[in-house]
Each structure stands twice: as structure tokens, then as C-alpha cells.
């Protein structure tokens, strides 16, 4: 069963981190990513640049409009994602609970929906 773990962090808090704290967090994320890749739980995943680099695209009546920033203002912003393989939700929760930013923000775990070809 595939799950996507969406990692949300309060960007304003992250910006307040010292260089050392930020580097340590990144190193911890890399190490954890490696360990769950080895265990077969991580199929993929990336960290994201902050929301001030985001662009929102919509198509209405065939017309493309682009706007600056994410589509919703929220307290925590999407900061990265892990594409996970887990036998069930309990295993996905267990793997997600050890993602380092879970201590600072939150991780949303969503089952992947199979698109069905008709």
C-alpha cells in the first residue's frame, strides 16, 4: 500500500533557526531518508523550497492564470514529501512519526488513490 507523507512546517519558525540548527535538521532528514530507503519504506520524496518561491496555476474557461504563492494561507506550509510503501496505516504512521520535522510541524499521511483506466 502506498502513502504520501506531506511534511508541513511553520516557515516563520524555521527562518529563526541558526545556521547550525538548520544544517543539523537537514543532516538528520538525509540520514532518516537513507534509513527508510534501505528498509524499503521510502519510494521517493523531496524537500521543497519555501512558499515564497511557489506559483499557483489555474485554468478557467481554457485560460491559464498564474498567481504568486501557495493557494491557501496557512499556519504551517508544505515543506517536503515522502512517498512511502507500508503494509497499512499503522506502519505508515510509525514511519512518519520518525520524520525529523514531525517534531516541529506536522505530517499528513494520505493513502494513494489508484486512477482506474476504463
Amino acid at each position, binding site marked *: *500500500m502506498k502513502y504520501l507523507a506531506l511534511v508541513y512546517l511553520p516557515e516563520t519558525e524555521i527562518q529563526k533557526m541558526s545556521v547550525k540548527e538548520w544544517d543539523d535538521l537537514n543532516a538528520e532528514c538525509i540520514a532518516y531518508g537513507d534509513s527508510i530507503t534501505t528498509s524499503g519504506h521510502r519510494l521517493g520524496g523531496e524537500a521543497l523550497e519555501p512558499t515564497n518561491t511557489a506559483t499557483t496555476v489555474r485554468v478557467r474557461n481554457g485560460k491559464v492564470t498564474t498567481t504568486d504563492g501557495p493557494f491557501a494561507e496557512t499556519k504551517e506550509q508544505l515543506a517536503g514529501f515522502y512517498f512511502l510503501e507500508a*503494509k*497499512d*496505516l*499503522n506502519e505508515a*504512521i*510509525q514511519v512518519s512519526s520518525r520524520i525529523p520535522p514531525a517534531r516541529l510541524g506536522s505530517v499528513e*499521511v*494520505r*493513502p494513494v488513490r489508484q486512477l482506474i483506466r476504463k
Partner: protein
Amino acid sequence: MTHEAEQHVRATVDAVYRAESRRVLATLIRVIGDFDLAEEALHEAFRAAVEQWARDGVPANPRAWLVSAGRFKAVDRIRRRVRLNASEAEIADRLHAEAEDIATVLDQDLEDDRLRLIFTCCHPALPQDAQIALTLREVCGLTTEEIARAFLMAPSTLAQRIVRAKNKIRVARIPYEVPGRDALPERLDSVLHVIYLVFNEGYSASSGSSLMRHDLSDEAIRLARLLVELLPEPEALGLLALMLLHESRRSARATVDGDLILLEDQDRSLWDRAMIAEGGQLVTQALATRRFGAYSVQAAIAAVHVEAAEPGKTDWRQIVGLYDVLLRLEPSPIVELNRAVAIAMRDGPEAGLSLIDALLEHGELEKYHLAHAARADLFRRLGRRADARVAYQRALALTQLEPERRFLERRLAELSS
């Protein structure tokens, strides 16, 4: 077959249904892997039992017979559907492949299935109200209509809540299992919380048919007994004790008109001694494990209260000590408020007042009616009528609960007389 014999079989099936239907359902959910299919299979199995047991006699192990019949019914039902979706086809294949001799289903498996069912219904990934509804329906066997009536909701709203929860169990694949050691404390908390919410809904309800809501307290106690039997963790014992000790005072805590009677004014001869004895014994057992938590300590406090033959004999020193422990385990302004009241009983109203005033200054309890009611009561004991009146009025302005409003109004009237 004679009419009497037919009646006899029907009565047997009914008795087996009452005693075993939840166990059989719990196992069917595991072997079928789907709540709705398992429920349909359960009912079809019982329908089949009425016919077959009349013809062939009641089987030696009715439980195993029902599980087996239910499984075949589920396979039939899936196959009958014209279009199978992928997951259903998978279930049908698996069920067919598992030609295991059902007689080998051990009683231990069945008990484990009941525990699995409880943990799945109370999974923290489900919304709390859905956990409650699902538990009452699947574990306790209440109907959707009964639950809706008890919670004063439209049956359709409740049914929808259950449908959504079952959908999440299926789609997000919430597993049917007893959590492992790592996750057990958190998951057990979630189960205990659901049971306690059900109990409180029945215990302190201020509206609705009181009879129906009383049943919720009974249901919560029954659930806790089942949990203690299946998983005798200290906090499960503690919660059962706490509920029994509260429940023991049910007939003494309100007048026939539904007016509140404070602990100190209750007729102690109305308290249920058997529940008190059982609750007390459970508390002792929980505390002796040294792995107890907040439920056990709250139960210990309740036990000290009910052990006093009259209000004046209450051991307030011990109660303050227990609140100190509770505050360390689970710090909260409400626990601090209760501790302040206990200190007022031990050391006099002034000592309690200064603690409550300090708590109110923090702001968190400013809108909590019981903080003002407690303060008013201490002023009253000190004979400071004007201060008491202001505090009672503040409490009255903050509560919507009808019996509490009547109580506060009575106190106000007494002050002006």
C-alpha cells in the same frame, strides 16, 4: 419438527445471538477484512442457523459454526455481485483459498478478535465522535437508531458518520490488530478516552431521555469490563474503578426532579455498596502495579470520598496528596482547582480562596463556571454573603446546564433569605 421444537431452536439461536454475536462479528471482520460485508455475513449466518439447527440440531460449537457459515455467505455474496471491483475480487479469492477447518478456530483467537475490534473502532485516525459511534455499534451491538437517540442526533447523521469511518478504515487501510508494545500506551489511551466519554455522556447528561442516557453509563462499564478481561492494563482497571465509584452514587446524586445533590448532602445509605467494594478493590490492584496513571489516581480520590461514613470523616489530607500526584501526572488548571477545594476542606476556606484567586488571575479558568461556584461556596462558608452572591451570579452567567443553574439559583436564594 414440532412447534415446540421449533420454538426451542429459535430461543437457542436468540440466546446464542445475545451471547456470541459480537464475538462472531469480530472474527468475521478479521477473516473477511471488511466491516459491512462482515455485518451482512453475520446476519445471514444467523438466518441460516434458524433453518439448519432446526433440521440438523444445534452444533457442538455454535460460535465456530457461525463463523464458518458467515464466511461462506460472504463468499457467495461477493460472487453474486455482477461486477466485482479489484479489492472485492481479492477478498473472494482469499476467502475461497482459505479452506481452513473452522473447528480449529481457537477461543483465544476469538478473544483477540474482540480486542482487535475495540482498537480498530477507537483508532485515533478516526474522528472522536465516529470512534464513539463505531464502538457502540460494532463492539456493544447497539443499533444506529439507539445510538442516535442516546446522543440526541438524527439517525441519518449518525449513520453517515459510521459510513465515513468505515470508508476511512477501508481506504486508508487501518489495520485490524492489537497495537504492538511501542504504540500500546497511546492507543490504549484512545480506547479509554472513548469509554470515558460514553460514560460521561450517560452520567452527566442534562437533557434528553434520562433512561436512555443512563444506559450509556452501563454500556461504558460493560465495555471497560470487557477491556479489563481482555487486556488487564493498570489504567483499564483504574478507569473501570473510577466509573464504578461514580456510578455507585447514581441514585443519591439527584432528586427525583433532577436537581443536583452535592456529595456532602447525599444520603449515603443509597450508595451501591457492591460497586464501591469492587471499585475499591480495582483501585488497590491498579495502584499496586506502580504503572498507574490519571484514571487510577482519580479513582483513588473517588474511593477516599465514598469510604467516609459521613462527610465530616472524609480524609482530606489523603485527597490533597492524591491531587498532588494527579497534578504531576496530568497538570491542568481544573485539577488545580479541585486541589484548592480539597485544601480548603483540610486547612480552611481562606487557604482555598487564595489558591482559587491565584488560579483565576492566570485567566484560564475565568470562563469556567465551577471555579466561580467553588469560590462562592468558600465565601459562603466564611459568611461573606455579598462576595458569595457576586461569585454565584458570575457562575450562573457561565453555565447552560439546567440542573446546575437550578442549584446555583437555590444557593443565591438561600443567601438573600
